[in-house]
């Protein structure tokens, strides 16, 4: 068994990325194949028909339905605003005029002489889908949406919360093993995607919300801190992450953790990639679903075309002597190293479990034995 089967998180300086953008109802696609789009470009739109409001006009004015037509100041098809004069009686010798002003907004769809009612349809609710990433429209799905394609940097995290957002990448820590604390987040981080190192504290999560940060990308988060923050932000004292279907939380920023729960140094390669992207606009999404058909959170930085596409990095592959690895479980969780031996026979580890192991030299110089299942291969 020479292979490592890691969750296959991609960390790539340049790869090809595609995103499906689909309306919830049939509507109109506003772009064409080949169009260049920005993250905020509306690529498809539909309108939810407004509700019909019945205005009992004759009744409200105390007149007979048959008298209504002569009093009306509007006609079918007119745009109606709140407070607009709908009808006015002539009164007696020009005095004691009786009038009615609209309580609703919309379009006058019908006038019933029989009942004296008006039908005003409220304005439709526009529903729009933006492009989420900067790129090119690759495919148009008629009446439904588009597939946007771009070349860019992609960092997949292991877990996240919060939905789609954009922001400029800003580093708040100078090393991947530095923790992100509240004091490091300043008003300058408003609208930014803040990159930390090994951990984000509860205080920093609160501070990010205060200053209006768009996102946080960090190695780890202590489960209690995240849950406490979410319970507070969502005003739900019982909130918990059960089977980890996230991305819908109505919180003010998006969090992507790259390594796991606890304080875990961000992989150097991931940190360096994010460092190299500082100042660039990224799209971020915390949506995670951990089950067959998995969805992982992501940070995407679209880049101009023409660069060399990198092979998919940090995905499962063959383990060999010298393969750089990261340990993904205690007691060496988060530590990098390289494979020094791959014994074929099963080995009994401290838990007394007989497993296939590898021997590795860790970056701190220690030589250790680790179950093969507990490492992931990292790109050079």
């Amino acid at each position: 068994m020479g292979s490592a089967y890691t969750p296959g998180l991609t960390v790539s300086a340049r790869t090809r990325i595609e995103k499906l953008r689909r309306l919830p109802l049939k509507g109109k696609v506003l772009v064409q194949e080949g169009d260049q789009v920005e993250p905020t470009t509306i690529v498809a739109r539909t309108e939810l028909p407004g509700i019909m409001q019945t205005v009992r006009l004759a009744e409200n004015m105390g007149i007979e339905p048959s008298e209504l037509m002569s009093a009306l100041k509007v006609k079918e098809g007119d745009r109606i605003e709140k407070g607009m004069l709908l009808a006015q009686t002539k009164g007696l010798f020009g005095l004691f005029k009786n009038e009615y002003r609209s309580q609703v907004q919309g379009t006058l769809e019908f006038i019933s002489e029989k009942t004296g009612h008006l039908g005003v349809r409220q304005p439709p609710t526009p529903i729009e889908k933006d492009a989420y990433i900067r790129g090119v429209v690759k495919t148009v799905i008629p009446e439904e949406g588009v597939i946007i394609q771009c070349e860019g940097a992609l960092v997949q995290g292991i877990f996240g919360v919060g939905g789609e957002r954009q922001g400029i990448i800003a580093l708040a820590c100078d090393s991947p093993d530095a923790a992100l604390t509240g004091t490091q987040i300043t008003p300058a981080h408003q609208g930014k995607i803040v990159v930390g190192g090994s951990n984000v504290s509860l205080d920093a999560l609160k501070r990010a919300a205060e200053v209006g940060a768009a996102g946080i990308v960090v190695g780890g988060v202590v489960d209690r801190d995240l849950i406490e923050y979410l319970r507070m932000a969502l005003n739900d004292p019982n909130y918990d992450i059960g089977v980890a279907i996230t991305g819908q939380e109505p919180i003010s920023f998006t969090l992507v953790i790259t390594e796991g729960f606890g304080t875990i140094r961000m992989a150097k390669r991931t940190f360096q990639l994010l460092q190299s992207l500082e100042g660039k606009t990224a799209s971020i999404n915390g949506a995670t679903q951990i089950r067959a058909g998995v969805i992982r959170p992501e940070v995407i930085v679209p880049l101009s075309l023409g660069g060399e596409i990198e092979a998919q990095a940090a995905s499962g592959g063959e383990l060999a002597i010298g393969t750089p690895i990261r340990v993904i479980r205690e007691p060496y969780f988060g530590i990098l190293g390289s494979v020094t031996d791959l014994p074929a026979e099963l080995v009994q580890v401290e838990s007394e479990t007989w497993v296939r192991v590898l021997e590795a030299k860790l970056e701190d110089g220690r030589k250790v034995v680790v179950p093969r299942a507990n490492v992931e291969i990292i790109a050079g």
Partner: protein
Amino acid sequence: MSEVRSILATDCGSTTTKAILIEKRGSEYRLIVRGEAPTTVEAPFDDVTVGVINAVREVEELSGKRLISPEGKILTPAQDEKTGVDLYLSTSSAGGGLQMTVAGVVKAMSAESAQRAALGAGAIIIDVIAVDDGRKDYQKVERIRQLRPDMILMSGGTDGGTVNHLVELAEMLVSADPKPRLGLGANLPVIYAGNKDAFPPVQELLDGRVELRQVENLRPTLERENLLPAREAIHDLFLEHVMQQAPGYSKLSTWVSRGIMSTPNAVGKIMQTIANQRNITVLGVDIGGATTDVFSVFRNEAGESIFNRTVSANLGMSYSICNVLTEAKTENINRWLPFEISEAELRNQLRNKMIRPTTIPQRRMDLMIEQAVSREALRLAFDHHKSLARGLTGIQQQRTIGEALSQDATGKTLVNMMDLDMIVGSGGVLSHAPRRAQSAMMMMDAYQPEGVTLLTVDSIFMMPQLGILSTIHEEAATQVFERDCLIYLGTCIAPVGIGKEGEECVKVQFQGETVSVPFGTISVIPFGFVSGDEGEPKRAEAVIEPARNFDVGAGKGRHRTVTVTGGVVGLMIDARGRPLTLPADNAARIRKLREWMTAMGVPCEV
């Protein structure tokens, strides 16, 4: 069928894919080797057959046979002694747990009933959609798409009541155009449990777009709730459409000699066979990464053996581990740990197991944490089983509505631990525990067997494969099961009652000696196999004399003479009392746990 001499069988679990090679050696079928590899349902593989090939590759290495063709398929039929196999079979539960959306007309009425039905079927509810929930239709549509439910339960309207609102719900589903999570071409299962009069127009709208199944209205009148038919439909559809599905499933379907069977169906077959052949009552469990399946054969009042099977779709040791945490709470997991650990550390560990489900505990403390979680998962899944286990499931009997409504009462009378003859444990955490005594303890703590119960475990986690094999080649399945699969741990004697620490609880006269076991302790008498460390277990008579306030099946204080069976652990006398209560004081609790573990021969130092 020409003579089958070699069989390869795989079980694709949510986390691990297991492969076994069975061959006919002389006149009998035996397990030759096994291999395993992580299940590959995640990127970059997204194809369950990759994990199958990896597991089979291990079997190839260990057996010296060539089983995979140059095109990367399983070689069948066998070409010669060293190439290929006569039969290739597979079971699957790779699709993982069940996450549902329930939809109803009135949030506080039908939607709430639907929610109860889904929860009762072991599902996680990821959203409750109601006509009156305050959201716009398009928001609901978007939500369904984002959440990718595995199944939708649609309810609303009393029989003869509203039709329009149900049609509106159906229209919303048409707009959402929901696709199954794994996008395998099949339609999304939708269970309709609403006003029967509204079904025809709903069917007209949804036909061909979803896999629609109608069951009885779960709220036929305002005052009446009828959850059972919906629960059963959820359960069935989960097994048929969700659990066994995974990316690459259709490819795997073309490799196998017979259709792929869902893992719980396969294990259920084995459990039924054990109960039938030995004429005993059985409680079986298969604890996986995403789900925990519980099986039982108990006798009803008429003395008939009744088989029940439940799948707790979100209790498991990897993908679902944090749901065990949510349901059991940290303190209940922590109570089984013989050492101090901060809540934060425990929670971080479990979250990390969830996000990296294929990792293995390297340290003893990590193993103990997983075994503590397993006790809670086993307990919760058993509670679920008890709530659903009734006298009617699985046999051909007609059910009246009255009986259906009295399900809880019927279920409670059916699962009687004092009448239970045998517990069979399967699944990674039980089959692969480094010491068999650890498996015995997990089952004793979680199930709290009463009286006299034989404990057994699946040796290497191969019951699913033997279950499907039994449908095609019963002889091979039975021989391998008896010789290579079922591991006898030994008989557990557990008096029911509560006493004071150290006071007399039970005396056991056994093999010419009398062992007195005080309350609050465990005592193990070595009692193994007829020859060597495996094979036919020893059997001998034991006279059990419980103290005045304790019962071992013959009534309080009344002695009982039974035949006990030996095993790897031996004769386990569990005098901790029933119900089992752990000391409230932390230091005392840790001391007791260590004492019990030591008695069982389980290391407790970390």
